[in-house]
């Protein structure tokens, strides 16, 4: 089994891209996904990942002529002359050192050691490779938000960003909900959707700072742990016969509970940091931007490979552009949604 070291990493990344291009005609399936300003063309095998690509995204309806195209080859040694994935050969590995070495060569990448799962991307040529040991040798989170690392690199190269944040909106204006797991972000998004508010997504949304702060949808997946699923009335609405995901959570799609088709974007007017208060009613109070960015940035940066400094600068700019609040969440979903709806109406005046 070949091993890659920090020294040989850029050459290995280029080797993978060349190998995929050489085998381009032998990938059985071609999937096109239309996202904001981007046509993502994936070449891969039939199977779970191909199915995920057909289900996981909220596709954009804009004119595809306004889109740039990027290509990602999702391969394994069973396709053409695609190589066996290499293992990491240095005694030490840090995500930051790995990303920096590739960035110095104009490349991006990620390596998941347990599976020798590689993702490399050339942002100048907009071409990437995901190399796996076998067709199903991918991390369990890949199906919920497939190819998110490639989207992260491509949009970061354009000065945009995937933010780990939820969204809720009314009449085209919305709020970002930011916070670590367990803070109540996802439950708040579902509560809003079930009570008439819009959302362009939870977990990962695309943020653009040109012309104000806008959020656009990418992924359609929503998740709830079983207690939240029951509390929000989703057992009755969606049933419980689907298998739980790798986190033991119920996974479902935004269109299954949204009151209307998902909007193309929301103009974001505030950053809300949710907090499960234990009280009966919800309330919204200002917090410092310092506290807001510490809620927003760490998960968005740590969950995405590379682009750490640019991410910190981006989320800093985002935080400065928005008023920031803490929302103390009450216990009833409709009351939480009503509090946010009232906030959006008042802030529009």
């Amino acid at each position, binding site marked *: *089994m*070949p*091993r*890659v*070291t920090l020294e*040989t990493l850029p*050459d*290995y990344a280029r*080797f993978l891209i060349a190998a995929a291009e050489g085998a381009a005609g032998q990938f059985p399936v071609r999937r096109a996904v239309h996202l904001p300003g981007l046509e993502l063309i994936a070449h891969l095998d039939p199977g779970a990942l191909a199915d995920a690509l057909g289900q996981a995204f909220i596709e954009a309806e804009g004119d595809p002529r306004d889109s740039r195209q990027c290509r990602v080859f999702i391969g394994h040694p069973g396709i053409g002359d695609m190589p066996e994935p*290499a293992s*990491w*050969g*240095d*005694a*030490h*590995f*840090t*995500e*930051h*050192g790995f990303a920096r070495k590739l960035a110095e060569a104009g490349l991006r990448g990620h390596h998941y*050691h347990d599976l020798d799962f590689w993702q490399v991307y050339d942002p100048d040529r907009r071409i990437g490779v995901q190399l796996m040991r076998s067709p199903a040798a991918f991390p369990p989170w890949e199906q919920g938000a497939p190819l998110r690392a490639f989207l992260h690199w491509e949009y970061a190269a354009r000065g945009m960003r995937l933010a780990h944040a939820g969204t809720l909106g009314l009449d085209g204006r919305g709020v970002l909900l930011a916070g*670590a797991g367990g803070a109540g972000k996802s439950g708040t998004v579902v509560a809003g959707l079930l009570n008439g508010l819009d959302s362009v997504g939870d977990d990962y949304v695309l943020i653009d700072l040109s012309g104000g702060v806008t959020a656009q949808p990418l992924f359609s997946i929503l998740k709830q742990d079983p207690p939240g699923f029951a509390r929000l009335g989703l057992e009755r609405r969606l049933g419980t016969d689907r298998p739980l995901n790798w986190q033991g959570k119920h996974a479902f799609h935004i269109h299954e509970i949204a009151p209307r088709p998902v909007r193309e974007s929301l103009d974001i007017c505030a950053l809300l940091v949710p907090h499960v208060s234990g009280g009966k009613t919800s309330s919204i109070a200002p917090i*410092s*931007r*310092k*506290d807001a*960015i*510490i809620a927003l*940035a*760490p*998960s968005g*940066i*740590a*969950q995405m490979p590379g682009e*750490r*400094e640019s991410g*910190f*600068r981006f989320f*800093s700019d985002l*935080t*400065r552009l928005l008023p920031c609040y803490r929302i103390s969440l009450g216990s009833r979903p409709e009351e939480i949604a009503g509090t946010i709806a009232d906030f959006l109406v008042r802030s529009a005046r």
Partner: protein
Amino acid sequence: MPLSDVYAVAGRDIVFESFDGEAVVLDLSNGKYFGFSDSGSKVWQALSSGVGTEELIRSAAARIDAAAIEAFITQLVEFGLLAPSSATPLPSSDDLPAALAAASEPLNVSVHDDLADLILVDPIHEVEEPLGWPAVKQVS
């Protein structure tokens, strides 16, 4: 630990931003965030821009005692945010004493590392003699 005459940001992995006068520092190498109180932000701003330690202690004398500043600097060095520098100490800005006097919070820096890299320790399970890449095929 004896204090240096002057300090500098500890390396290119230490990046920081200011939000309404409050500093947030990120250590890119490990994903840790550091949030500074208002007085801590003024001290960070001064030290990271090369203001001399003695000058800083003098400027802060009306609001913060020297021992507190020394302990704070020691903490920032231990966190890997500042390192002793051989540069010539710079004078503080004229408004630093007033800014410190106006601060309402004690010197403090909080660490946020819930999501910091979990892979600083070696994640490799079986590194033996690496072949390296590309592996040169042996001619038999």
